[in-house]
């Protein structure tokens, strides 16, 4: 239960794209005076974030730019792509699926399997597993996993518990059927009891949009939001993540008989520094094996793992072999870990739009 092994699947390249607008938390009056700002930055680790900031930029646009760059550097023809998965909780439309729109924008063939997956912080992990399942037997040879979110659009700028934490990003991961490769070793899990820990109350079909959805409510000083904006139970997520993430990683290593000391890097979803450090110390991982991108980009939801790989491990990924553990955890509650080995993959420089 919970474990899957998709053999014969390799990652050939990863690319990422963020909006060029940079916001600096050190200038954010929402956080209070300079001492309070410093305390926030020390706790969460978020100094700057990249935001779409009202521009007509969706997650799909960020993913598009990442994918276009990646396909060009990989020298893959768009019509060779057999499957396209778009993972996001900030899609273009309620319907149709954004993956269909991306099929056209990227010039992929009509004979392309395309669908959206709705998940957040665990989204890249789940998306990799889904695309691994599609490619593993060779029926599909090449696939693109696009994972991205414009999370900042769903956060109230008057809510200090959410707004300063998140950033926007879109990524593209190219996978190929490769006979004999060790593939993807996966652990995934779900606990729907925690579904209210991270939630947007209105806008779905349980509580559809109505004029009251846009009314702001002050929950406490510095926490003002409406029902179309994300509510985040920080402590609840902290407790969940420091328990489940290490267990998932250890469980995967044990199940597949992997030696933790032979893993080169552990790329964790960039939730917040204090939480991630807790996971690192629990697993007794040395600092140099656990890269962070949160100080520059904030928590970028489904794109955080590939974004961290592109911005912090580009040299290592492009020049040699890497043994990686990747772990995503968050909204749902949903979490998972993947062990994969890469060899000189294509990793363009970060794209800014």
């Amino acid at each position, binding site marked *: 239960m919970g474990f899957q092994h998709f053999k014969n699947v390799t990652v050939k390249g990863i690319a990422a794209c963020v909006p060029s607008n940079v916001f600096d938390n050190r200038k954010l009056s929402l956080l209070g005076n300079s001492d309070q700002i410093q*305390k926030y930055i020390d*706790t969460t680790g978020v100094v700057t974030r990249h935001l779409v900031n009202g521009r007509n930029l969706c997650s799909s646009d960020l993913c598009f730019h990442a994918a276009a760059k990646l396909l060009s550097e990989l020298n893959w023809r768009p019509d060779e792509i057999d499957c396209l998965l778009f993972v996001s909780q900030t899609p273009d439309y309620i319907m149709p699926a954004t993956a269909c729109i991306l099929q056209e924008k990227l010039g992929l063939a009509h004979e392309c399997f395309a669908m959206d997956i709705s998940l957040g912080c665990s989204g890249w992990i789940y998306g990799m597993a889904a695309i691994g399942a599609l490619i593993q037997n060779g029926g599909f040879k090449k696939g693109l996993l696009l994972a991205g979110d414009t999370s900042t659009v769903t956060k109230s700028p008057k809510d200090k518990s959410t707004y300063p934490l998140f950033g926007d990003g879109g990524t593209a991961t190219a996978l190929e059927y490769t006979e004999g490769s060790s593939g993807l070793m996966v652990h995934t899990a779900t606990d729907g009891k925690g579904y209210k820990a991270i939630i947007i109350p209105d806008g779905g079909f349980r509580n559809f949009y109505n004029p009251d959805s846009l009314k702001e409510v002050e929950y406490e000083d510095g926490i003002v939001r409406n029902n179309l904006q994300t509510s985040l*139970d*920080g*402590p*609840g997520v*902290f*407790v969940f993540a*420091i*328990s489940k993430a290490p267990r998932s990683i250890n469980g995967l290593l044990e199940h597949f008989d992997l030696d933790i000391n032979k893993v080169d890097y552990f790329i964790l979803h960039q939730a917040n520094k*204090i939480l991630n450090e*807790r996971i690192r*110390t*629990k697993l007794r991982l040395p600092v140099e094996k656990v890269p962070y991108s949160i100080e520059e980009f904030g928590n970028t939801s489904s794109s955080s793992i590939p974004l961290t790989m592109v911005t912090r491990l580009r040299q290592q990924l492009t020049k040699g072999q890497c043994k990686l553990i990747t772990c995503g955890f968050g909204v749902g509650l949903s979490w998972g870990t993947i062990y994969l080995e890469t060899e000189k993959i294509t990793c363009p420089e970060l794209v800014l739009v």
Partner: protein
Amino acid sequence: MMEKFIDHFREALDASEGKEIRLEDRFRDYDEWDSLRYLSVIAMIDSEYDVIIETSEFKKIETVGGLIEEIGKRIKT
């Protein structure tokens, strides 16, 4: 276990060594107590006792003694 817990607890609160901590104290009334200390305490209980107390359960605990009791229960199970 009680003494060790109190030491760990004092550390998680980032309180001075001289701070007196009694079993009957309502820890939320401490000057040091805030949302960050709450997270530190959760992390401490997890690392020292391998016990995770969920937010909903933690809310019901009022005193330092109550925390020790809850940990004790969970270690047994």
